[in-house]
């Protein structure tokens, strides 16, 4: 899936024989093996008639932070006998780096930003995997930056751009990224050492030689493949990563033309209804929605779901029916709210057991056990009980005390044991009771109110209805997180009449949603709403 920006040039190879040192900057995160890689490069140079020098910055920068390792090398020629040691720089000069190795995609961006990677000189070898930064990880929604932007920057900032997921290649070979990147360096042929000369250095090392060589080989081949011209098949404006690029084209077209083919017999009627009553753009989402609701409760619940979205279709005048599409998404997500029954259901499924086993990387001779960390709040228990009982227990002091005693320190359940599985299995079996539960009634009410709000807003201001629809995104998580999200959602809904008086109410709601997503404490939203803190 990668293309080269420019043909491979031989000029960088010949430069090594002139009196200019070859320079290499390795950008890695502390603890990733950047130091090992730099040591290998120095070793292969020294073993093959070169002077080589390697420096890095020491200290706490190496505790998971971004770090630069820097290597220079120069051949020992007749004018430079052993005694005549060259003066090599301890720091890279921007614009003068021959090879930049980045162990991660954002680090390649950092190399470009720091001027190490330039179009006239640099061969950029980058691993396309992402190690997300703290702001990307702690965002309350999707805080990921655009990987494609980094790929494009790499193309525009390098003479050659060799890229692959070298981290995955290393993991697949039970090794670390330094080995697969060393393979890529050897394949790039900018440093004038053969594959065998590089492999000899690994063989001379201590442990994990076989795994390192396997990862080296994978990295070597991936680097060669990376520079073979192929057509860039990327679809869409912003796939944060390949696995995330959405449903396949044939599934989408099937959802539009024959949604029944995507569901089982129980949902055929619903699917036919999607085909006849709903706009094309929303059909895939609706198919997923009916399956989700039916799995969550029953077929009747899926029908109810379609009834709800149908109310939106009547009034939707937004371009591409984007209101209907998002209403189809968020109505389904809301209707399948996370309660104890749903959690227990998913935790007991076979697919989940298989996934956990695979993820544990256990071989067949090893055993895998799974333990859950549950901390049910009193509300989560009363929520699943029939409304009158739930309401009564919620206010019962003795019941509160009992629940506190049991759950205060959290409950650990071994789902892989007979007892633990039985508990969760029985919980999941409470599904038929859900319709009569306290929370079910409350949630259905909230959903209908929200749909009604959308229906009332859509004819006058489709964009406003769309923005209000997206606010459902705020309601997620469990416990306090859920309560905070719901509070933020309610505050924004209550603000709609005020927003409608402003020149651009839709944008106002969008800004408020952004504020709610920017800060866990709700302070940013309060400020945006103009409330006193």
């Amino acid at each position, binding site marked *: 899936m990668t293309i080269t920006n420019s043909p491979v040039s031989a000029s960088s190879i010949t430069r090594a024989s002139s009196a*200019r040192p070859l320079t290499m900057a390795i950008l890695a995160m502390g603890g990733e093996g950047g130091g090992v890689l730099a040591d290998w490069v120095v070793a292969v140079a020294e073993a093959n008639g070169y002077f080589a020098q390697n*420096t*890095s*910055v*020491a*200290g*706490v*920068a*190496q*505790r*998971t932070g971004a*770090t630069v390792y820097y290597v220079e090398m120069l051949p020992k020629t007749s004018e430079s006998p052993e005694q*005549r*040691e060259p003066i*090599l720089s301890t720091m*890279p*000069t921007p*614009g*003068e780096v021959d090879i930049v190795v980045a162990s991660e995609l954002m680090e390649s961006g950092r190399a470009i930003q720091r001027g190490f990677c330039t179009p006239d000189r640099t061969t950029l070898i980058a691993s396309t995997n992402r190690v*997300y930064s703290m702001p*990307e990880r*702690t*965002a309350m929604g*999707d805080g990921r930056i655009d990987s494609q*932007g980094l790929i494009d920057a790499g193309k525009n900032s390098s003479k050659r751009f060799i890229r692959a997921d070298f981290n995955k290649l290393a993991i697949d070979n039970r090794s670390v990224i330094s080995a697969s990147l060393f393979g890529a360096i050897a394949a790039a042929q900018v440093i004038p050492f053969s594959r065998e000369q590089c492999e000899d250095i690994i063989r001379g090392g201590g442990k994990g030689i076989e795994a390192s060589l396997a990862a080296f080989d994978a990295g070597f081949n991936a680097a060669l493949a990376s520079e073979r011209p192929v057509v860039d098949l990327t679809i869409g404006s912003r796939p*944060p990563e390949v*696995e*995330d690029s959405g*449903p396949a084209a044939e599934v989408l077209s099937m959802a539009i033309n024959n949604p029944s*083919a*995507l*569901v*089982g017999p129980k949902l055929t009627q619903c699917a036919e209804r999607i085909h006849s009553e709903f706009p094309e753009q929303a059909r895939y989402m609706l198919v997923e*929605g009916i399956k989700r609701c039916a*799995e969550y409760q029953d077929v009747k619940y899926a029908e109810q779901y379609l009834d709800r979205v149908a109310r939106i279709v009547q009034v939707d005048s937004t371009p591409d029916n984007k209101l209907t599409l998002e209403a189809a998404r968020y109505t389904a*997500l809301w209707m399948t709210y996370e309660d104890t029954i749903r*959690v227990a259901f998913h*935790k*007991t*499924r076979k697919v989940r057991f298989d996934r*956990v086993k695979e*993820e*544990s990387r256990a071989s067949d001779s*090893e*055993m*895998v056990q*799974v333990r*859950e*960390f*549950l901390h049910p709040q009193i509300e989560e228990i009363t929520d699943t009980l029939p409304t009158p009982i739930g309401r009564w227990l919620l206010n019962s002091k003795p019941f509160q005390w009992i629940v506190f005693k049991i759950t205060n320190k*959290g409950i650990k359940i071994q*789902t892989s*044991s*007979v007892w633990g*599985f039985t508990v969760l299995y029985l919980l*999941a079996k409470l599904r038929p009771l859900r319709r009569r539960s306290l929370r079910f009634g409350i949630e259905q009410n909230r959903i209908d109110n929200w749909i009604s709000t959308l229906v009332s807003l859509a004819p006058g201001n489709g964009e406003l209805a769309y923005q209000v629809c997206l606010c459902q995104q705020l309601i*997620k998580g*469990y416990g*306090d*997180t859920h309560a905070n999200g719901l509070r933020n959602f309610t505050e924004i809904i209550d603000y709609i009449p005020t927003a409608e008086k402003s020149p651009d109410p839709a944008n106002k709601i969008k800004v408020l949603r952004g504020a709610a997503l920017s800060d866990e404490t709700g302070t940013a939203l309060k400020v945006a709403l103009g409330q006193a803190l």
Partner: protein
Amino acid sequence: MLTSYLPHAYAWGHVGAHAPRLVNEGIIVMAERSFANEVQELRLGAGAEFRGEGILAVTKGLLQSGVAYVGGYQGAPISHLMDVLGDAHEILEELDVYFENSASEATAAAMLAASVHYPLRGAVTFKSTVGTNVASDALANLASGGVLGGALIIIGEDYGEGSSIMQERSHAFAMKSQMWLLDPRPNLTAIVDFVEKGFELSEASSTPVMLELRLRSCHLHGSFITRDNKRPQFTLKEAIENPQRDVSRVVLPPSSFTHEQEKVKDRWPAAVKFIQENELNEFVAEKNENIGIILQGGLFNTVNRSLELLGLSDPYGNSQIPLYVLNVTYPIIDQEVLRFCEGKDAILLVEEGQPDYIEQNINTVLRRAGDTTALHGKDLLPVAGEYTPAAVTKGVTAFIQKYLPSKINSENLPAIVFDNDDPRSPFAPRVAPELVQGRPPGFCTGCPERPIFAALKLAEREVGSHIVSADIGCHLFSINAPFNIGATTMGYGLGSASGSAFNAKDSDKRTIAFMGDGGFWHNGLTSGVGNAVFNENDQLLVVVDNAYSAATGGQDVLSSRAEALNRSTNHPIERAVRGIGVKWSRTMTNTFKVAEMRDLFKEALTTKEKGPKVIVAQSECTLNRERREKPARAKKIKEGKRVVRERYGVDPETCTGDHSCIRISGCPSLTIGPNPDPMRNDPIATVLDSCVGCGLCGENAHAAALCPSFYRTEVIYNPSWWDKAKLGIRQRYIGWLQKGIEKQLIGIDAA
């Protein structure tokens, strides 16, 4: 896991919620990086080629100089020098060299007192400027009376990229106490030579000598030709058995006044003579042109690279522009400066950092001599900040363009000299700034300090926010996201002291201070805890006890739990604070118990008890633990023994992508990933293979009542027959029920 202090319980309880128990009797723990193999090179005799890192070269230089004793305190960039010396104890013993891990830089500097009355060569090392700050009391006294034996202070100058401290120069210390400052060219031969020459200079001028190693020089890989190691000519044993004293060397009137006169009348001229005779400073192409560059030795390679880029030098240092290389940056040798400037129109001084001490000095030299050579420096080069190749190349280019424009081919300038908005510049914007986010250092995967701050964050949700004084050490990473805890850091071991003003008796709120075990033993016990007891300060002090001086690379301290070779360890922190008068003190032997930590914080912040409250939060540094445990685990698995490996996971079906779990952790292994749910947009939380199963995710899920998506996977290697029997029953039972679940779903999804 909360215990009041019990001596016999003072070993690792268990680390990580379910980590294997370890009572490490007789286990020898070394620092994070072992140099056990490399130190063998220290035995090399004359004429051999030594290859390795800068710090190893320094050690070899010490042995070649006949050093009698060495001390120091770890800290980047010279931590590894201490580790090398520790790992080289056998070689040191063979050569009668005494080495100790000093309690602080002040201790190390005071150790040099051994060279005052005896012809003993001694060396100490520490991080600078911070270590030199701590050492300066002893250094000033040492420099006043002067030395008989050579005294060398090897300072790791933590300046520029990668530095973790305030940006200052050690040069000021050399000037104020009159110690000579060496800043040799960054190659191993020069560094080793200057270790040896440093001792000679010290003895020739009765003055302590500082050898400055720049950050990158310490980790510089290179080679040099060795000389034989030398035993000290005079030993510590001989000194102890023949006590000497000379009251004129003691800093007390009237001698102290005499010392000041000696410094300028005797020691300075002696040093100048030695430096000139031994040609410690270098002249390159001295008369080649009518301009020249004066530079600090440590910047030689950078300046040469700049000249290379302009076509004015080659990789072997054959500069066409005259260079005067100050391998000794203090004192400035007036005669050499005047000699270099003679017949030159202009000079560029390349002096890194501020204030511009050398520039002022050389200006005075030229002015007094009536020399009219123009002196450029910080007018063409940056006034502050690291002298990177980019900064130096720009400055050198401007200088040559001004005086010798014909020497440069303006058609072929290096890209770096162009303005940043010029498309030819390497800094021309090619990547959107928002795509490259900062990646500051943080807590490692499995770090036992992370749960302390998770617990404090949770406690503060209930009892409100507090003034938090931070300290120096890994725990300072708390100031960044996701914890955002800690407002000031005043120095090593000074976390408690820096909250001492906030002692308002009319406030219900108390302050919180953090301190590491390293800082505690360095000085925090007296400067912080003793001070708080004496002044009846109500603060809560959290001593983070991870059993090592961890941020500097895992060196042992007094309270380390392992039995260390040649060191006395296992001295509990709680006993020390109680000894100094603290009444309320608790030791948490497992920081991963987040809910207990949180409740303990709440108690400490609300108890009626007066005076300082000290919590010792104890769990072993995971880097050190994994370094020991990982091979041990692999060995057990290989031997067929039952071993349980743990890791955590997140169920993608139930994770809603709100990331509140990440906001109270920040663990590198707990990250985000694509959401497999076709209806959801936000990425889900996910646990990477690098998870070490520390248990924090599970504890957080409980303590913060987060979400039920977390689970722990236990992989049992070499399961017992009982494990296998259980597994058989479970698989049949669970498989049968799971079939029922799937049956229920038939007809919903397409077959």
